[in-house]
């Protein structure tokens, strides 16, 4: 059974196909509006989330499918002590595909190893968040016209930010990528990510704490939130939470070509005044995320042999 736990579970060719499908959905949504009729997506969210869960649910509805959802982890069997493995086996009896978020790292892999239907990781603690990265990649493709030859600045919490590690893994596979990693010392990208995803691939990168100095050379500035829920120590969180705040004034340091991205939700790291800047793309990411989730659901259901008919895109009939 094919699952997507990590962005690296998808080849660059498959990502190209997903982008192609997403662009086709954007062009002609009616073609896809009934393609998943009778199919059910189970959204298992063991951690609070609004946008990712609703994005998956909107994606499935727009494909003509149905959604099985639990209201919250507190109302699920997990609260009674059921294991992730058992939950995955049980839900496999009800649904055709699972999207799961869980606070523990590796939970989605456990679910995938036990489910008999495809599992999509919708975030496992601070580890991976591949569908956010798919949203990011479609946004970059639509805004910059390419995924190659870009200087990507990533700013904020680069230690615990799961979207950061997934984005680095994804962009490190495209030719000509260069990373500028902007963070306080305590929230640097973990060494193993730098070693495995950047250094070994011979990708140029710099690490800095100075956002203003880094901005002029960037094609993309990817801002992230300092996440309270990843800290064991409230003091550390309070000390670091205001490390970087992007203001309209600061945007003057950037070139006209630099786009601003953010996985959202934001707290205060991007001033609301920046929203009016045409280089601000974070709300476009949200919409792009829905289209890429639609494309991914189609791909996985197609590969599992659960879709048929003339409207099924070529890529999922492989």
């Amino acid at each position: 059974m094919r699952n997507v736990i990590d962005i690296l579970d998808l080849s660059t060719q498959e990502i190209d196909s997903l982008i192609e499908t997403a662009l086709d959905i954007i062009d002609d949504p009616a073609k896809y509006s009934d393609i998943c009729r009778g199919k059910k997506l189970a959204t298992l969210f063991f951690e609070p989330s609004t946008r990712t869960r609703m994005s998956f649910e909107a994606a499935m509805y727009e494909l003509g499918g149905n959604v099985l959802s639990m209201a919250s982890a507190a109302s699920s069997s997990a609260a009674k002590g059921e294991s992730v493995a058992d939950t995955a086996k049980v839900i496999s009896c009800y649904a055709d595909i699972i999207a799961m978020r869980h606070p523990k790292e590796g939970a989605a892999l456990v679910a995938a190893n036990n489910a008999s239907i495809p599992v999509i990781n919708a975030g496992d603690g601070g580890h991976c968040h591949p569908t956010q990265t798919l949203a990011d990649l479609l946004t970059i493709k639509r805004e910059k016209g390419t995924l190659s030859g870009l200087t990507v600045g990533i700013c904020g919490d680069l230690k615990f930010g799961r979207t950061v590690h997934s984005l680095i893994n994804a962009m490190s596979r495209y030719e000509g990528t260069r990373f500028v990693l902007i963070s306080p010392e305590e929230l640097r990208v973990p060494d193993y990510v730098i070693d495995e995803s950047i250094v070994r691939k011979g990708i140029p990168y710099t690490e800095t704490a100075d956002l203003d100095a880094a901005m002029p050379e960037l094609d993309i500035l990817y801002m992230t939130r300092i996440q309270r829920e990843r800290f064991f120590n409230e003091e550390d969180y309070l000390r670091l939470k205001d490390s970087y705040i992007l203001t309209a004034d600061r945007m003057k340091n950037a070139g006209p070509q630099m786009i601003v991205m953010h996985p959202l939700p934001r707290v205060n790291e991007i001033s609301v005044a920046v929203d009016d800047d045409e280089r601000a793309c974070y709300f476009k990411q949200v919409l792009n995320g829905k289209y890429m989730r639609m494309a991914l659901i189609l791909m996985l259901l197609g590969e599992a042999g659960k879709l048929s008919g003339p409207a099924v895109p070529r890529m999922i009939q492989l």
Partner: protein
Amino acid sequence: MNIEPIVNGIVIDHITAGKGAELYSLLGLDRLDVPVALIRNVPSKRLGKKDIIKIDAELPVDFDVIGYVDPGATVNIIRDGKTAEKRTMELPEILTDVIKCRNPRCITSTEQELKHVFRLADREKREYRCIYCETKAE
């Protein structure tokens, strides 16, 4: 010091001196109901000194554990008093339930009876990472 030769069993030889006890423990040899000898600091031409473990029974041995603790060790299977098979060890690609993931955020910290599995991430550095959370093995 004399230890009876083995007729049918296993000799783990060329163990780096000092690692015999760790291997003895990780292989669970303390729980065996057969004669087992751990000989430490045996003079060795190649190593200066080495540890040796002799097990007086041909039991299934987890070669991955030996490869992980000491890839330089050799395993001799003894049958009818002769070396029937000689195996050299290497770092295993996957380690299952040999070491524990210490990351409190990892699913292994809460999931019932989930095996702790590590993959070899860097052979040169002998670095293993948890397959669930990618935390480095300590």
